[in-house]
C-alpha cells in the first residue's frame, strides 16, 4: 500500500511535469520552416508524392537504416534466445485448428502477401511503405501459422531474404556516397515522372528491400516465438 501511494505520488509529479511541458501547446496553425521546406521542395527534390516517405527514406534515411537495424537486432536476439538446441527433443502439444481457418488461410495468405508487396511498392505514392508492407506480409505469416501450427518455416530462407535485402540497402546508401551527393542520396536513380511507380529515385527500391527485410525479420520473430510455444 505504501508502495502504491508512493507510486501514485511519483506519477502525479510526472503528470505535473508533462502538464508543464505542454501547457503552452495550443495546436499548430502553420508549418514550421523545416516542414514547409519538405512540403514545398520535397516533391521536387525527392520526387515522392508521399512526403512522409520522402522524409523517412531520403531526408532521414539514416534513421530508417537504424530502424531496420533495430528490427534486425531484435530478430537476431529473439532467434538467439529462442534457438532450439539441436538434438533437443521436440514434443510440442499443438491444438488442432478448425477447418474454416485452415481453408480460409490458404486463400487469404497469398492475397495478404500480395497486398503487402503492393503496399511497399507504392510506398512513395500512397500511405504505406516498407514497414507497413513488411508488417502485412508478416501478418499473413501469422495467419498461416495459426492455421497450420506444425508447419516449419524455413529459417534459412528468412535469413537469406533478410541478409540480402539488408546488404542491398547498405549498398544503395554507399552508392549514394560514391555516385551521388551523399549516403542514401535519392538521386542515384533519376527522379522520373512525379506520381508514377517508377519515380522518386531509389525510394521504391529501398522500400522494396525494407519491405522484404521487415517482412523477413518480423516473420523470423514470429516463427521463433511460435516454435517456442509450450516448449519446456
Amino acid at each position, binding site marked *: 500500500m505504501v508502495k502504491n501511494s508512493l507510486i501514485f505520488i511519483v506519477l502525479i509529479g*510526472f503528470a505535473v511535469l*508533462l502538464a508543464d511541458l505542454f501547457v503552452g501547446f*495550443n495546436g499548430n*496553425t502553420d508549418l514550421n520552416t523545416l*516542414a514547409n521546406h519538405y512540403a514545398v521542395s520535397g516533391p521536387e527534390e525527392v520526387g515522392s508524392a508521399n512526403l512522409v516517405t520522402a522524409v*523517412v527514406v531520403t531526408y532521414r534515411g539514416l534513421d530508417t537504416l537504424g*530502424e531496420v537495424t533495430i528490427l534486425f537486432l531484435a530478430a537476431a536476439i529473439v532467434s538467439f534466445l*529462442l534457438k532450439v538446441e539441436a538434438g533437443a527433443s521436440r514434443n510440442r502439444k499443438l491444438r488442432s485448428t478448425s477447418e474454416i481457418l485452415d481453408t480460409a488461410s490458404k486463400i487469404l495468405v497469398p492475397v495478404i502477401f500480395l497486398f503487402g508487396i503492393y503496399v511497399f511498392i507504392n510506398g512513395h505514392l*500512397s500511405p504505406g511503405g516498407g514497414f507497413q508492407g513488411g508488417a502485412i506480409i508478416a501478418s499473413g505469416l501469422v495467419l498461416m501459422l495459426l492455421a497450420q501450427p506444425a508447419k516449419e518455416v524455413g529459417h534459412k530462407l528468412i535469413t537469406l531474404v533478410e541478409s540480402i535485402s539488408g546488404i542491398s540497402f547498405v549498398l544503395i546508401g554507399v552508392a549514394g556516397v560514391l555516385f551521388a551527393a551523399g549516403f542514401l542520396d535519392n538521386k542515384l536513380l533519376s527522379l522520373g515522372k512525379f506520381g508514377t511507380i517508377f519515380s522518386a529515385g531509389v525510394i521504391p527500391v529501398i522500400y522494396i528491400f525494407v519491405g522484404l527485410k521487415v517482412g523477413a525479420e518480423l516473420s523470423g520473430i514470429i516463427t521463433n516465438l511460435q516454435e517456442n510455444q509450450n516448449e519446456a
Partner: protein
Amino acid sequence: MENLNLEIITLITGIILVLIGIWGLLTQKNLIKIVIGFTLFNTGIHIIMVSIGYVKNRTAPIIDQSVNINDVGNSVVDPVPQALVLTAIVIGLGVTALMLTYVLKMYQKRKSLEINNYNDLKW
C-alpha cells in the same frame, strides 16, 4: 471549451495513456501485464508525437487529388512527426518483441510470470 481542439484531445489522451502505462508497469505483478503497461506507455508517446505534428484543418502529407500541388505548404500537416512516429513505432515493436521473448525465456526457466520471483540479483 474552445481550446479543446482535436490535437489537444489527442495530446491529453496520449498523456493519460503514458501515465496509465507507467502505472500498470509499476503496479502489475505479472510480467506480461508489465509489458502491456510498457506498450501503453509507448503508444501514448506516439499519440503525443502525432498530435504535435497536427496542423489545424489540414490533410495528410501525401500529394494526391486532395492536395493542390502548388500549395502543398498550406494544405498538409507536418510530415516530420509522422516520419518520426513511424520510426518510433518500429523501435517500440522491436523492444516489445524483445521484452516478450525475455519473458518467455524466463517463464521457460522458472515457470512463473510473477515478477517477484526474479529478484535473485540485488544489492
